[in-house]
């Protein structure tokens, strides 16, 4: 049974605007940070800086958007960072060896996707808890990547390829377009397709979902495969932006990606969350880094400030949604 205080209950009067309200409250947290930064430094509210923040958020968002679906099913994918590392290194090798960015891109995407599908198989078919399956996968991938790269880097890619990461179109960076595409596609997939609904249902109650005839194995494999493929996408944009691949490039991104999803309002227990929320989460994390750099906050203080803002942003979002 549930006690009244713990149950989010909807009132019919607010229903029409409830979804909108949730978005508003989520944006509020990001908005407040923007406002504070805008007041603190003139450099913040410039077109350049906004585009800059968006472009920086895009990499994190690619990773986090795939992860959102995994978390919606009540799982977790800890291997995405390591996945980026291996996908990028293989893609880079192929580009170097064949001179063809297309082949390289395909390699990166395929590697990412294959790793994701392995995760999915382990979680769905072998029934290994996702935390462990992907944690194990993380180590396996690191091992392979370190062995393969032996501390070296691969760098120098064709300019055409590099457009994906550092090019502009109509003054707006290409990764930002890509981000919008994935934001829209991800939102439509999650909210407006049968598969998306089934993914929510699996996260909300896997037992009930199975007994409702949802093919949970296939959906789980799909979701992990998708998360892996998004890591592949991130690895390609990464290569294109940084013009270089090394084994540990993704390592520092796993935790922020999970954080972005959770700041975006998702629950680790599944069934709650949205791709748009994740976008806001990625934005908040990026804004915090941007702000600290703009204000040149002392390096020692940065983890502390980040932590405090994180907790505050999530609290605000939750508080707001409780009110809504």
């Amino acid at each position, binding site marked *: 049974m549930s006690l009244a205080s713990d149950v989010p209950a909807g009132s019919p009067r607010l229903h029409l605007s409830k979804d909108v309200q949730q978005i508003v409250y989520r944006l509020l947290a990001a908005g407040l940070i923007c406002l504070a930064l805008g007041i603190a430094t003139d450099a913040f509210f410039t077109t350049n800086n906004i585009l800059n923040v968006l472009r920086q958020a895009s990499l994190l968002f690619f990773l986090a958007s795939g992860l959102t679906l995994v978390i919606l099913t009540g799982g977790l994918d800890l291997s995405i960072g390591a996945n980026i590392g291996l996908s990028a290194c293989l893609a880079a090798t192929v580009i170097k060896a064949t001179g063809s960015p297309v082949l390289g891109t395909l390699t990166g995407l395929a590697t990412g996707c294959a790793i994701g599908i392995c995760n999915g198989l382990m979680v769905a078919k*072998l029934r290994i808890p996702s935390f462990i399956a992907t944690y194990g996968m993380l180590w396996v991938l690191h*091992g392979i990547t370190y062995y393969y790269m032996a501390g070296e880097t691969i760098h120098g890619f064709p300019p055409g390829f590099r457009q994906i990461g550092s090019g502009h179109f109509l003054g707006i960076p290409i990764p930002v377009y890509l981000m919008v595409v994935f934001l829209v596609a991800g939102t439509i997939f999650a909210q407006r397709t049968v598969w998306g609904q089934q993914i929510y249902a699996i996260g909300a109650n896997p037992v009930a979902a199975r007994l409702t005839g949802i093919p949970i194995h296939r959906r789980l494999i799909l979701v992990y495969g998708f998360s892996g493929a998004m890591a592949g996408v991130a690895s390609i944009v990464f290569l294109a932006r940084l013009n270089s691949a090394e084994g540990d490039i993704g390592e520092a991104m796993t935790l922020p990606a*999970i954080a972005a999803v*959770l700041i975006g309002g998702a629950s680790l227990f599944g069934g709650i969350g949205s791709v748009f929320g994740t976008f806001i989460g990625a934005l908040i994390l990026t804004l915090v880094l941007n702000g600290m750099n703009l204000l040149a906050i002392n390096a*020692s203080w940065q983890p502390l400030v980040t932590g405090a803002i994180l907790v505050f942003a999530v609290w605000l979002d939750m508080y707001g949604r409780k009110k809504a």
Partner: protein
Amino acid sequence: MPAVPGVAVALVGLAVLFAIASPGFLSPGNLSNILVQSVILLLLALPMTLIIMTEGLDLSMGAVLTLASLVLALIVVATQSLVLGLLGAIAVGLVFGLANGWLVAVLGIPPFVATLGTLGAAQGLALIVSDGQSVVGIPRFVRQVYSGEMAGIPTPILIGAGFYALFHVLLYHTRFGTYVCALGGNRDALTLAGVRWRPLLIAVYMLGGATAGVAALLMTARMNAGHPTAAIGMEFDAIAAVALGGTSFEKGNGWIFGTLLGVLTVGVLRNGLNLMAVPSSVQVACIGALVIFALFLDGMRSQKS
């Protein structure tokens, strides 16, 4: 728990494998090595088991350990008193535990995010109090805590055994333990039984903090220094050991002996691979494969029943 859990199979299998492959493995010295090396991780994994049983998570543990270790080092260097230093370290742990518990239980912030936030805070404070430098000049008697012996048994093993016993009793023989299980399994059941769950949940996180404080003593004694990045990321090892031991992330399904086995399995694996001089990149992959394998066994079993 299944009759023979995967983690036990993995542990025994590895031990046999290494005993055959590497002559030094079964020497008393090496076995005591493995145990001693596992103690700090065990001290984090024990409370982590309880926290995970409440459907929680504590990502701040490694950073809190680090901060506590620095505070301990600073206090010991200043006062030459081990007791004061330890109290300081435990106090740091308790304060962070309280903060974690308060964020999770009272403000209702998801544990992952809440403790990620305090992780940042602890890491930042560690950098600030140490100015990014190691703290050295730790007196000899602190080192004794790690390298000393009692009745021929290394002190860390005694401490580890003591804490294991403590947590075992706490979980299975006290009210607190029963309630920990209920916190994850069905919080409403506690409320209906007239038990206030929020203070309990806070207590669980504080217990984690305090134990991290004790682990900080061992860590400081081991390094003979306080270091601002010493235990960063250790919480993930602890979480993995707990999961390896068969504790699940939902519904308060935990097993403290499994955690012990999980910690030992990781210890044996790393030690054995080092003895066999397996290259680091292959070691990394082996750790991953083992972790998957152990849980795969459990998965197979649960599929059958």
